[in-house]
Each structure stands twice: as C-alpha cells, then as structure tokens.
C-alpha cells in the first residue's frame, strides 16, 4: 500500500506503525508452526536448538525421530494413525450424509421453526467440548459403546455435522432453484434431480464441509479421552499423553507430518472455495 505523496508526516509515521503491528501479528500467527520443522530433524534428544544446529552443521540434523516414529519398538503411532484415519473417514461420511440432508431441508423456504432447529443443529460446535464429552460419555457408557470405534465415530459425527450444515446451507443460499424445477418439469424424479443437478452444483460446499468434519475428527482429543480405551488410541490422544509425560522429539516428527497434512487440506479447501464462488458468480 503506497501512500499518496501529499500525506502528512504524522500519518506517515502512523502508517508505518500500523504496518509494523500487522507484521508482528502475522509473525505471531505463523512463526510457531515453523519452530517445529527444524527441531524435528534434531540429532539430539533435547527440544532445544543445539549448538550444531545453530551453526547449520549437517551432523546436527538427522531423520532419527522420523525413523523412530515409523519403526520404533513398542511405538503407538502406527496403531494411532490407523485408528485416526478409520474414525475420521467414517465420521466424515456420516457427517456429510446427515448434514447435507439437513441443510437441504433447512434451505427450503417452507421449513418451519428454521431458526430454532438451526440453533440446535449448530450447538455441538458451540457447547464447550468438555461438556459434550461428559454427555456423550454418559450416553455411550449406557448403550455399551464406550471404548469402541463405533462410539467414537458416532461422537465425531455429532461434532462434525455442524460444519457440513453451515457450509452446505451457505452454498445453497446462492442456489438457483429454477434448475431443479426445470429438471422436474422435464420428467426427472426427485432422486435423479438431486444426483444429476443439485449435488454437482453444491458439491464444493459438501466437500469443504466434509474437510472440516474430517479435520474436526482427526484433531479431536477431549471426547476421545473420555471414550477411548487402549485399543482406540488416536494420534491426538498419543500427542496429548506425550506432551504431558515424556516430551520426546518423536512428537515433533509427528507434528511436522500433521502440518504437511493440514497444508494439503488448506490448499484443497481454498481451491474449492474459489471454485464455488466462481460457480455462484455464474449463477448470478
């Protein structure tokens, strides 16, 4: 942002001050993520930059902790990763199906009590996780689903659906309903209309909602801590125990992998958002 030449000095100073603040905040937001990166290649066992690392000595860096993460004896990460992916994938599918159906209903202008129902459907996102965790734990214990994959998947569907409902209703708000009417008038049944007309148009919203649901499940630790037994441990639970007990650089290796994963998800979500905006732009 270049300043016009006629700007007075005090506004000039203020402007540079403003830029300085913004730089600091951006740095504050992003820098912590980059600390993990180099430290995960530390050849030593401590979580500080060694003298060798500060001199950029190649011997001070190693893949030791990545090796430990994959091949380490009695290490929990393999099982945790498997569980995390299984749970997150099923929770995402469940959230997408339930959330998209609900969003379709909510977007209809005939929907009664829209505000109230929306408030209930969004509530799992607002209610503190610890309370959700306690309530869901009581339920799962009663029906005998505590310490099972099914129980955790159901819990994560509860937490994931609000995101799908929000993104899909947002996509549907720009949706031109005359195209579905056109399809019906040309003799298509409602199911076909949905599969061939509606779904392709709202797909970006569905997928980005699904991404949110996936990340929510993949990153969720509070509810899993209540529900999980030893068999159902997930990556966040392992990180939680690790950070509380023995802070080892293996955790940083895992964290680096997670940052790479979240970067991929961010890129996908951004591309989808732009595509969706473009599609809606054409509709208008």
């Amino acid at each position, binding site marked *: 942002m270049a300043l016009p030449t006629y700007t007075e000095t005090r506004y000039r100073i203020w402007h540079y001050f*403003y830029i300085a603040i913004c730089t600091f*905040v*951006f740095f*504050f*937001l*992003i820098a*912590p*993520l980059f*600390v*993990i990166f180099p*430290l995960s290649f530390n050849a030593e066992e401590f*979580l*500080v*930059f060694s003298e060798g690392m500060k001199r950029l000595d190649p011997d001070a860096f190693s893949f030791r902790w990545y090796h430990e993460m994959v091949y380490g004896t009695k290490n929990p990460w393999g099982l945790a990763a498997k569980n995390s992916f299984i749970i997150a994938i099923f929770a995402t599918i469940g959230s997408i199906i*339930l*959330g998209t*159906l*609900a969003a379709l*209903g*909510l977007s*209809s202008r*005939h*929907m*009664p009590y829209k*505000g109230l129902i*929306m*408030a*209930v*459907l*969004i*509530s799992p996102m*607002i*209610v*503190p996780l*610890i*309370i959700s965790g*306690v*309530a*869901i734990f*009581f*339920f799962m214990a009663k029906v005998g689903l505590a310490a099972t994959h099914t129980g955790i998947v159901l819990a994560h569907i*509860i937490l994931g659906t609000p995101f799908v409902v*929000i*993104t899909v209703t947002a996509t549907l708000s720009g949706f031109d309903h005359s195209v579905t009417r056109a399809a019906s008038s040309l003799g298509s049944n409602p199911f076909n209309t949905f599969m061939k007309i509606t779904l392709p148009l709202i797909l970006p919203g569905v997928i980005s909602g699904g991404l*949110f649901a996936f990340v929510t499940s993949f*990153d969720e*630790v*509070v509810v899993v801590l*209540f529900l999980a037994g030893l068999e159902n441990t997930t990556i966040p639970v392992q*990180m*939680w125990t690790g*950070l*509380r007990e023995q802070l080892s650089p293996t955790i940083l290796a895992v*964290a680096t992998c*997670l940052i790479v994963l*979240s*970067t991929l*998800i*961010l890129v996908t*979500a951004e591309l989808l958002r732009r595509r969706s905006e473009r599609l809606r732009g054409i509709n208008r």
Partner: protein
Amino acid sequence: MSSETKQILTTDGIPLELSLKKAERKNKIKAFLLVTPLLLFLFITYVFPIGEMFTRSVDDKMVTNMLPKTFKAMEKWDGKELPPEEVFAGFYFDFKVLVENQTQGKLGQRLNKEKNGFNSIVKKLMRQIKRNKIDETVSIKEQIMKVHKRWRTVEYWQAIKRTAPPYTMAKYLKGMDMYFAPDGSIAQVDEDRRIHRILWLRTLEIALFVTIFCFLMGYPIAHLLATLPMKYSNLLMICVLLPFWTSLLVRTASWMILLQQQGLVNDFIVMIGLVADDNRPTMMYNKVGTYVAMTQILLPFMVLPLYSVMKTISPSLMRAGKSLGGTPFVAFWKIYFPLTIPGIGAGCLLVFILAIGYYITPALVGGASGTLISNQIAYHMKATLDWSFASAMGLMLLSGVLVIYWIYNKLVGVDNIKLG
C-alpha cells in the same frame, strides 16, 4: 352477490386457497423430513444425554432408597430433640437389611460427608448387629443409644434427616463454594477453601482478556487483508488459515517449545539484554503461557468474521469522509469503525465462547495457576469420579455459554457463521 362466486376454484373444483394450503403443508413436511434424521440423531445421542447430566447432578436417591422405613417414621419427628422410638426402630430394620446385603459401608461414607464421625459409628452398629447383640423385643432406641455416644446426639439424627429428599442442589452449591449448614440454611465455605470461585473468576478473566487481545491483534490485520489488493491478501490469508487448519495439539506443542526456560523466546530476551541469562523468567505452566497460546490459537476466529464484514465496506466511503474535510483518524472513527461493529460482535462472542470452555491448552501450558473450570470438570470425571459434581459444574458452565450463544444468535444469527 353470493360468496361462492368470489371463490376461485381449481380445475378439480377445490377452492384454490385450500389447494394451495395443502401443497404448502406437503412442502413443509418434505422439508422437515429431510432434517429429521440429523435432528433425531442429535436428540438421542446429544441433547438427551445433556439433560441426563441434570438428573445426575441433582440425584441423591441412594440414602432415600436405603432407609425407607426411617424416613417414613421421621415424617412425624420435629427434628429438635432425639427422635422417638419408631425412628430408631425404622432405622434398625433398614440398617439390618443393609448389613445383610453388605452395603452399609456406602451409607457410612455418604453420611460421613453430611457429618463427620458417621463412618465409625455405622461400623460399630454393624458389628453389634452381626453379633446379634440387639434384642428386638425390648426398646431398640435404648440399645442403639448405648452403642456409641454419637447415636445419642441429636445432630447426627438431623444429618440423617437431611439426606431424605431424593434430589439435592448440594452439588451446585459446592460448585460455588457454598453448602447446606446443619440448620438447612446456605453457608459459605471457609475463605481459604474457596477454590471453585477462584476458578470461575479466573476462567472469566482469561476468556475476557484473550478476547481483548484477539480483538486488538485481529482488527489491524483483518483491515490490512480487506484493503490490500487480492493477490497480496490471498498470500497473507494463508498466515491466518494455516494455523486455523493445523492441529490444536501441534500448535500447543510449538508454544511449549517456544516458551520453555531454554526456549527461543527466552533466548531472544536474554540476547537483547532484557534479563540476565541466569534469571530467565518462567513463561510456561502459569497464566502467561495460557494467555499467549490461547490468543494465538483463537486469533483466526476473530480475524475471519472481521474480514468478511470489512470486505463489504466500500473504500469510497472513507474517501468521501476525507474529501468532506475529516482527517483520516476522524474518517476512520466516524465511518469505518461503526460499520465494522457487526464483525466485532461476531468475532468477540465467538472467541469468548470458545475460550471459556477451553481445556487442552490450559491443561498443557497452564500449570496450576493457569487452569480453567473445564480442567476441574475433567479432574472430577477422571480422578475423583464424582460424576454428579462434574455434571453440575458442566451445566453451570453450559448455562453461561448458552446465554452468550443466545445473544450471538440474536445479534449475528447462527446461519451467518462463516468458515474459511
């Protein structure tokens, strides 16, 4: 003119109005059926269990079920002097059943919470009954009173009477450091034992300050993002979105590394000479750690709603203000800032709601002085197993959050929440 001629009919002879209403109702049902699966699912697995937390938190049926005859007899007792023979007899027969089922220990523990010293006299009575020392043909009152002098003390019988109602608000009072005094009034816990009130205040304080910090840091960058040309702002937006998508535990871990005694932040302030090397400040396991980490983690939730509001403000408004003679500061304060208030409201409420229920980050970087009410709930769920107390505290927290949620819904509308 008769009224029939005014009515418009459809081709099959039904009045149009009725026909339209019918179609409308059909559409309503159709829309509702689409929402039903999720609504049912949420009610069964989520809304009802939260309601169940309430019954659990006020439940006090254990003693009520254990001593039915006692409480029946106690109805006639005024509670001022030692109870009459019938109460003692009722208690004796109730207690005998408990001894046969070997559940008298639970009664002792529960009554001990009500008044200290119950555990030992319950055990003593149990031994007498097991040895068949109590003769049921003569006065039971006299014999029980002989077992221990506390059985002759009226306060202990009053304590039993207090456990009669099947429901109690005691857990809620405990959550606010209060309790039922022996005479039934509400009393305060001793000043040095008021831990919960400190926790509530600290939770509010931390949530409030984190919201303020997030606002102070989020406003300038949201403004920058909204005013920069697209190609730069998209790049900078990554700085906001990448932390947003990154695992909470990863971000907490990075703060644990940065803030530790030998960490980079400490290295830096030693390097610029703010503190001596042997005098490094503790920045983790206290409030400072909680503030710093929570602010960074919740900042995206402030920036995104602010950004989406600022994006809609036309830059020509500011130019108009300046061309009419306002200095840039006046133009900003009188024109731009008022227009961003909806975004400020949305962002602040969202951050506050999220901060007030935070658990993971305070538990890892907070230490003893940085923990919040959620940590206490988790502690009672996992360590002391006092689930009814955990439920009561959870519901107290929930009622606070729901009030803010309601305000949020009125001001912003939940369907206006923007993600990403």
